[in-house]
Protein backbone atom coordinates (compact mmCIF):
# COMPACT_ATOMS: atom_id res chain seq x y z
CA UNK A 1 0.00 0.00 0.00
CA UNK A 2 1.44 3.34 -0.98
CA UNK A 3 1.79 5.88 1.81
CA UNK A 4 0.45 9.32 1.02
CA UNK A 5 3.22 11.29 2.75
CA UNK A 6 1.84 14.64 1.74
CA UNK A 7 -1.19 13.76 3.86
CA UNK A 8 0.67 12.04 6.68
CA UNK A 9 3.40 14.63 7.04
CA UNK A 10 1.27 17.45 8.44
CA UNK A 11 -0.24 15.05 10.96
CA UNK A 12 3.19 13.83 12.05
CA UNK A 13 4.52 17.34 12.40
CA UNK A 14 1.40 18.38 14.32
CA UNK A 15 1.83 15.50 16.73
CA UNK A 16 5.45 16.48 17.27
CA UNK A 17 4.57 20.12 17.82
CA UNK A 18 1.80 19.17 20.23
CA UNK A 19 4.35 17.11 22.12
CA UNK A 20 6.69 20.06 22.26
CA UNK A 21 3.90 22.37 23.40
CA UNK A 22 2.79 19.98 26.12
CA UNK A 23 6.38 19.99 27.38
CA UNK A 24 6.31 23.74 27.75
CA UNK A 25 2.78 24.33 28.92
CA UNK A 26 3.13 23.21 32.47
CA UNK A 27 2.63 19.51 32.97
CA UNK A 28 4.04 20.01 36.43
CA UNK A 29 4.12 23.15 38.55
CA UNK A 30 6.65 24.48 41.04
CA UNK A 31 8.62 22.10 43.20
CA UNK A 32 9.98 22.65 46.68
CA UNK A 33 13.45 21.53 47.66
CA UNK A 34 12.05 20.56 51.05
CA UNK A 35 13.58 22.82 53.68
CA UNK A 36 12.99 26.54 54.13
CA UNK A 37 14.53 29.31 56.23
CA UNK A 38 13.34 29.73 59.79
CA UNK A 39 14.00 33.49 59.65
CA UNK A 40 11.83 35.80 57.60
CA UNK A 41 14.80 37.87 56.47
CA UNK A 42 18.07 36.24 55.44
CA UNK A 43 21.28 38.22 54.85
CA UNK A 44 23.72 37.57 52.04
CA UNK A 45 27.15 38.89 51.09
CA UNK A 46 28.61 39.50 47.65
CA UNK A 47 32.14 39.24 46.37
CA UNK A 48 31.72 41.42 43.27
CA UNK A 49 35.07 40.56 41.64
CA UNK A 50 34.31 39.34 38.12
CA UNK A 51 35.55 39.40 34.53
CA UNK A 52 32.86 41.49 32.88
CA UNK A 53 31.46 44.37 34.93
CA UNK A 54 32.33 46.93 37.56
CA UNK A 55 31.82 45.98 41.18
CA UNK A 56 29.15 48.65 41.53
CA UNK A 57 27.22 47.34 38.53
CA UNK A 58 27.35 43.78 39.81
CA UNK A 59 26.30 44.88 43.26
CA UNK A 60 23.24 46.67 41.94
CA UNK A 61 22.12 43.92 39.60
CA UNK A 62 22.57 41.12 42.16
CA UNK A 63 20.42 43.05 44.61
CA UNK A 64 17.75 43.48 41.94
CA UNK A 65 17.74 39.76 41.23
CA UNK A 66 17.45 38.85 44.90
CA UNK A 67 14.71 41.38 45.51
CA UNK A 68 12.21 40.01 43.00
CA UNK A 69 11.09 37.39 45.51
CA UNK A 70 10.03 40.04 48.01
CA UNK A 71 8.99 42.81 45.63
CA UNK A 72 6.76 40.75 43.38
CA UNK A 73 5.08 38.52 45.94
CA UNK A 74 3.32 38.63 49.29
CA UNK A 75 5.66 36.03 50.75
CA UNK A 76 6.77 36.69 54.31
CA UNK A 77 10.41 36.44 53.36
CA UNK A 78 13.18 38.52 51.89
CA UNK A 79 16.91 38.42 51.22
CA UNK A 80 18.72 41.38 52.72
CA UNK A 81 21.98 42.61 51.25
CA UNK A 82 24.68 42.68 53.94
CA UNK A 83 27.54 44.15 51.91
CA UNK A 84 30.69 43.06 50.15
CA UNK A 85 32.98 40.20 51.02
CA UNK A 86 36.47 39.17 49.87
CA UNK A 87 35.70 35.50 50.47
CA UNK A 88 36.25 33.28 47.41
CA UNK A 89 35.35 29.83 48.73
CA UNK A 90 32.11 28.34 49.91
CA UNK A 91 31.14 25.90 52.61
CA UNK A 92 28.56 25.44 55.34
CA UNK A 93 29.66 28.44 57.39
CA UNK A 94 26.35 30.31 57.84
CA UNK A 95 27.65 32.96 55.45
CA UNK A 96 25.35 33.21 52.45
CA UNK A 97 27.70 34.23 49.72
CA UNK A 98 27.46 35.18 46.04
CA UNK A 99 30.69 34.87 44.08
CA UNK A 100 31.91 34.93 40.48
CA UNK A 101 34.39 32.17 39.79
CA UNK A 102 36.92 32.39 36.98
CA UNK A 103 36.05 28.88 35.86
CA UNK A 104 33.44 27.13 33.79
CA UNK A 105 31.19 24.26 34.75
CA UNK A 106 29.84 22.45 31.74
CA UNK A 107 26.86 24.33 30.42
CA UNK A 108 25.84 25.66 33.81
CA UNK A 109 25.69 29.44 34.17
CA UNK A 110 25.40 29.53 37.94
CA UNK A 111 25.02 26.99 40.74
CA UNK A 112 23.40 27.27 44.13
CA UNK A 113 24.80 25.19 46.96
CA UNK A 114 22.38 24.94 49.87
CA UNK A 115 22.80 23.25 53.21
CA UNK A 116 20.13 22.14 55.64
CA UNK A 117 19.34 19.97 58.61
CA UNK A 118 16.13 18.98 60.36
CA UNK A 119 15.60 22.60 61.47
CA UNK A 120 15.66 24.02 57.96
CA UNK A 121 18.08 25.80 55.68
CA UNK A 122 21.46 26.65 57.19
CA UNK A 123 23.46 28.23 54.39
CA UNK A 124 23.11 29.02 50.68
CA UNK A 125 25.90 30.07 48.34
CA UNK A 126 25.66 31.05 44.69
CA UNK A 127 28.52 30.61 42.24
CA UNK A 128 28.45 32.32 38.82
CA UNK A 129 30.67 30.44 36.36
CA UNK A 130 32.36 33.52 34.99
CA UNK A 131 34.78 31.90 32.56
CA UNK A 132 32.02 30.07 30.76
CA UNK A 133 29.76 32.99 29.90
CA UNK A 134 29.65 36.75 29.42
CA UNK A 135 27.54 38.61 31.94
CA UNK A 136 25.69 41.89 31.54
CA UNK A 137 23.78 44.31 33.73
CA UNK A 138 20.63 46.28 32.98
CA UNK A 139 18.30 45.22 30.20
CA UNK A 140 20.05 46.22 26.98
CA UNK A 141 23.38 45.66 25.32
CA UNK A 142 23.57 41.93 25.93
CA UNK A 143 25.09 39.83 23.17
CA UNK A 144 25.76 36.12 23.47
CA UNK A 145 25.56 36.13 27.24
CA UNK A 146 23.21 36.60 30.15
CA UNK A 147 21.88 39.38 32.33
CA UNK A 148 23.02 38.79 35.87
CA UNK A 149 19.70 39.96 37.29
CA UNK A 150 17.80 37.15 35.59
CA UNK A 151 20.25 34.41 36.52
CA UNK A 152 20.35 35.74 40.08
CA UNK A 153 16.56 35.70 40.34
CA UNK A 154 16.60 32.01 39.45
CA UNK A 155 19.44 31.12 41.81
CA UNK A 156 17.96 33.05 44.74
CA UNK A 157 14.81 31.03 44.09
CA UNK A 158 16.87 27.91 44.84
CA UNK A 159 18.43 29.66 47.83
CA UNK A 160 15.02 30.25 49.41
CA UNK A 161 13.93 26.65 48.87
CA UNK A 162 12.44 26.28 45.39
CA UNK A 163 13.34 23.57 42.93
CA UNK A 164 12.80 23.59 39.20
CA UNK A 165 9.46 23.80 37.46
CA UNK A 166 8.31 22.54 34.09
CA UNK A 167 6.27 25.69 33.53
CA UNK A 168 7.87 27.42 30.58
CA UNK A 169 8.29 31.12 31.22
CA UNK A 170 8.64 30.72 34.96
CA UNK A 171 11.74 32.05 36.69
CA UNK A 172 12.39 28.58 38.10
CA UNK A 173 12.30 26.92 34.68
CA UNK A 174 15.67 25.15 34.47
CA UNK A 175 17.03 26.81 31.36
CA UNK A 176 17.25 30.31 29.97
CA UNK A 177 17.74 31.79 26.51
CA UNK A 178 20.70 34.01 25.77
CA UNK A 179 20.04 37.63 26.82
CA UNK A 180 16.61 36.81 28.21
CA UNK A 181 15.06 39.33 30.58
CA UNK A 182 12.15 37.03 31.38
CA UNK A 183 13.22 35.47 34.69
CA UNK A 184 13.37 38.83 36.49
CA UNK A 185 9.56 38.93 36.23
CA UNK A 186 8.07 36.20 38.36
CA UNK A 187 5.47 33.90 36.85
CA UNK A 188 2.32 32.99 38.79
CA UNK A 189 3.90 29.56 39.29
CA UNK A 190 6.94 31.12 41.00
CA UNK A 191 4.74 33.26 43.20
CA UNK A 192 2.65 30.26 44.21
CA UNK A 193 5.85 28.42 45.09
CA UNK A 194 7.41 31.07 47.30
CA UNK A 195 4.09 31.85 48.98
CA UNK A 196 3.64 28.13 49.72
CA UNK A 197 7.02 28.13 51.47
CA UNK A 198 6.53 31.47 53.22
CA UNK A 199 2.81 32.19 53.49
CA UNK A 200 1.86 35.86 53.46
CA UNK A 201 1.63 37.24 56.97
CA UNK A 202 -1.63 39.02 56.26
CA UNK A 203 -4.19 37.34 54.04
CA UNK A 204 -4.84 38.92 50.67
CA UNK A 205 -7.90 41.23 50.54
CA UNK A 206 -11.23 39.56 49.97
CA UNK A 207 -12.86 40.12 46.60
CA UNK A 208 -15.49 42.84 46.61
CA UNK A 209 -19.06 41.67 47.03
CA UNK A 210 -21.37 42.49 44.15
CA UNK A 211 -24.15 44.88 45.04
CA UNK A 212 -27.54 43.33 45.51
CA UNK A 213 -26.19 40.41 47.52
CA UNK A 214 -26.61 39.97 51.23
CA UNK A 215 -24.28 38.00 53.44
CA UNK A 216 -26.05 35.72 55.88
CA UNK A 217 -24.04 34.04 58.58
CA UNK A 218 -25.12 30.73 60.01
CA UNK A 219 -24.15 29.33 63.39
Amino acid at each position, binding site marked *: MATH*WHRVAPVLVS*VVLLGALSQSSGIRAFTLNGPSWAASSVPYLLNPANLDLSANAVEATIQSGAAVWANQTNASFDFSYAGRSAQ*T*TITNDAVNLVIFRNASSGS*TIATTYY*WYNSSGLLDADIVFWDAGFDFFSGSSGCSGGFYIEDVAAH*EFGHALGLGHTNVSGATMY*PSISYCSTGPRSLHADDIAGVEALYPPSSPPPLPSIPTGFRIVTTP
Partner: protein
Amino acid sequence: MPVDLNTPRTAPKPRLVLSLAVALLVASLASSNDALAQGPEIPVVERAQRADLIVVGEVEAVQSNWRVNEYGDRLIVSAVRLGSVETLKGQPPSTVTVEVEGGSIDGVTLKVSDLPAFTPGERAVFFLSRAPGRRLVPNLRGQGVMKLDQNDRVEGTGLSLAEIRQSVAAAGR
Protein backbone atom coordinates in the same frame (compact mmCIF):
# COMPACT_ATOMS: atom_id res chain seq x y z
CA MET B 1 13.41 33.08 5.92
CA PRO B 2 10.76 34.71 3.73
CA VAL B 3 8.72 32.31 1.68
CA ASP B 4 7.54 33.16 -1.81
CA LEU B 5 3.84 32.49 -1.79
CA ASN B 6 3.88 31.95 -5.52
CA THR B 7 6.15 28.95 -5.22
CA PRO B 8 4.28 25.80 -6.28
CA ARG B 9 3.63 23.50 -3.34
CA THR B 10 5.04 20.03 -3.58
CA ALA B 11 4.62 17.04 -1.34
CA PRO B 12 7.48 16.74 1.19
CA LYS B 13 9.85 13.82 0.70
CA PRO B 14 8.93 10.95 3.05
CA ARG B 15 12.34 10.29 4.63
CA LEU B 16 13.03 13.96 5.15
CA VAL B 17 9.69 14.50 6.84
CA LEU B 18 10.07 11.45 9.04
CA SER B 19 13.61 12.43 10.05
CA LEU B 20 12.50 15.96 10.82
CA ALA B 21 9.59 14.71 12.89
CA VAL B 22 11.72 12.28 14.89
CA ALA B 23 14.43 14.89 15.45
CA LEU B 24 11.87 17.42 16.65
CA LEU B 25 10.27 14.86 18.92
CA VAL B 26 13.59 13.85 20.48
CA ALA B 27 14.58 17.49 20.89
CA SER B 28 11.27 18.38 22.53
CA LEU B 29 11.37 15.41 24.87
CA ALA B 30 14.97 16.02 25.87
CA SER B 31 14.35 19.68 26.55
CA SER B 32 12.79 19.36 29.97
CA ASN B 33 15.68 17.78 31.80
CA ASP B 34 15.18 18.75 35.40
CA ALA B 35 18.79 18.40 36.34
CA LEU B 36 19.75 21.67 34.74
CA ALA B 37 20.42 24.89 36.52
CA GLN B 38 19.90 27.39 33.81
CA GLY B 39 22.45 26.16 31.30
CA PRO B 40 21.68 26.07 27.61
CA GLU B 41 20.38 22.62 26.80
CA ILE B 42 22.81 20.34 25.02
CA PRO B 43 21.39 17.79 22.55
CA VAL B 44 21.82 14.16 23.53
CA VAL B 45 24.06 13.48 20.52
CA GLU B 46 26.41 16.26 21.59
CA ARG B 47 26.41 15.05 25.19
CA ALA B 48 27.38 11.64 23.85
CA GLN B 49 30.21 13.10 21.77
CA ARG B 50 31.61 15.00 24.73
CA ALA B 51 31.53 12.11 27.22
CA ASP B 52 34.46 9.73 27.76
CA LEU B 53 32.22 6.98 29.05
CA ILE B 54 28.47 6.41 28.86
CA VAL B 55 26.79 3.75 30.97
CA VAL B 56 23.30 2.77 32.05
CA GLY B 57 23.30 1.59 35.61
CA GLU B 58 21.41 1.12 38.83
CA VAL B 59 22.54 2.87 41.99
CA GLU B 60 23.71 0.22 44.45
CA ALA B 61 25.16 2.41 47.18
CA VAL B 62 25.83 6.06 48.02
CA GLN B 63 28.70 7.02 50.33
CA SER B 64 29.12 10.67 51.32
CA ASN B 65 32.34 12.28 52.49
CA TRP B 66 33.78 15.72 53.13
CA ARG B 67 36.06 16.96 50.37
CA VAL B 68 37.95 20.18 49.64
CA ASN B 69 37.71 20.76 45.90
CA GLU B 70 40.16 22.45 43.53
CA TYR B 71 38.72 25.89 44.37
CA GLY B 72 39.08 25.45 48.13
CA ASP B 73 35.40 24.80 48.80
CA ARG B 74 34.76 22.34 51.62
CA LEU B 75 31.80 20.31 50.41
CA ILE B 76 30.02 17.04 50.94
CA VAL B 77 30.66 14.77 47.95
CA SER B 78 28.98 11.45 47.28
CA ALA B 79 30.43 8.34 45.66
CA VAL B 80 27.59 6.67 43.77
CA ARG B 81 28.36 3.01 43.03
CA LEU B 82 26.55 1.50 40.07
CA GLY B 83 25.53 -2.05 39.39
CA SER B 84 24.00 -3.86 36.41
CA VAL B 85 25.99 -1.64 34.13
CA GLU B 86 25.35 -1.52 30.40
CA THR B 87 28.09 0.29 28.50
CA LEU B 88 27.04 2.56 25.64
CA LYS B 89 30.43 4.16 25.06
CA GLY B 90 33.99 3.68 26.31
CA GLN B 91 35.67 1.15 28.56
CA PRO B 92 34.33 1.25 32.13
CA PRO B 93 36.36 0.08 35.12
CA SER B 94 35.30 -3.15 36.82
CA THR B 95 33.33 -1.13 39.36
CA VAL B 96 31.73 2.09 38.15
CA THR B 97 31.59 4.74 40.86
CA VAL B 98 30.40 8.23 39.95
CA GLU B 99 31.33 11.19 42.08
CA VAL B 100 28.80 14.01 42.54
CA GLU B 101 28.77 17.04 44.79
CA GLY B 102 26.09 16.86 47.48
CA GLY B 103 25.03 14.34 50.07
CA SER B 104 24.33 13.95 53.77
CA ILE B 105 26.64 13.48 56.76
CA ASP B 106 25.60 13.49 60.42
CA GLY B 107 22.23 15.07 59.73
CA VAL B 108 23.55 17.85 57.51
CA THR B 109 22.69 17.76 53.82
CA LEU B 110 24.20 19.61 50.90
CA LYS B 111 22.21 19.88 47.70
CA VAL B 112 23.53 21.39 44.51
CA SER B 113 21.09 23.05 42.15
CA ASP B 114 22.46 21.63 38.91
CA LEU B 115 23.16 18.11 40.11
CA PRO B 116 20.77 15.32 41.02
CA ALA B 117 20.88 13.45 44.31
CA PHE B 118 20.81 9.65 44.25
CA THR B 119 19.27 6.88 46.28
CA PRO B 120 19.88 3.14 45.89
CA GLY B 121 17.62 1.49 43.35
CA GLU B 122 17.46 4.42 40.95
CA ARG B 123 18.48 3.84 37.35
CA ALA B 124 20.02 6.42 35.06
CA VAL B 125 22.08 6.99 31.96
CA PHE B 126 25.41 8.52 32.97
CA PHE B 127 27.48 10.58 30.53
CA LEU B 128 30.82 10.63 32.30
CA SER B 129 34.18 12.35 32.17
CA ARG B 130 37.40 11.16 33.72
CA ALA B 131 38.64 13.60 36.37
CA PRO B 132 42.04 13.65 38.08
CA GLY B 133 42.56 10.73 40.44
CA ARG B 134 40.69 8.29 38.17
CA ARG B 135 37.43 9.77 39.34
CA LEU B 136 34.35 9.61 37.13
CA VAL B 137 32.13 12.69 37.20
CA PRO B 138 29.03 13.61 35.18
CA ASN B 139 30.07 15.37 31.98
CA LEU B 140 28.26 18.73 31.71
CA ARG B 141 27.25 18.28 35.36
CA GLY B 142 23.48 17.80 35.58
CA GLN B 143 23.13 17.27 31.87
CA GLY B 144 25.36 14.26 32.26
CA VAL B 145 22.72 12.32 34.15
CA MET B 146 19.36 11.20 32.79
CA LYS B 147 17.36 9.36 35.44
CA LEU B 148 15.08 6.63 34.11
CA ASP B 149 11.62 5.68 35.29
CA GLN B 150 10.26 2.14 35.51
CA ASN B 151 9.42 2.20 31.81
CA ASP B 152 12.99 3.12 30.88
CA ARG B 153 12.03 6.65 29.96
CA VAL B 154 13.85 9.74 31.16
CA GLU B 155 11.99 11.17 34.13
CA GLY B 156 9.79 14.11 33.23
CA THR B 157 10.06 13.42 29.52
CA GLY B 158 8.98 10.75 27.09
CA LEU B 159 12.53 10.15 25.88
CA SER B 160 13.21 6.42 25.93
CA LEU B 161 16.39 4.54 26.68
CA ALA B 162 16.16 3.06 23.19
CA GLU B 163 16.23 6.57 21.70
CA ILE B 164 19.23 7.47 23.85
CA ARG B 165 21.02 4.34 22.64
CA GLN B 166 20.31 5.42 19.07
CA SER B 167 21.63 8.93 19.74
CA VAL B 168 24.80 7.56 21.32
CA ALA B 169 25.31 5.25 18.38
CA ALA B 170 24.74 8.12 15.96
CA ALA B 171 27.28 10.25 17.84
CA GLY B 172 29.92 7.59 17.29
CA ARG B 173 29.46 7.45 13.55
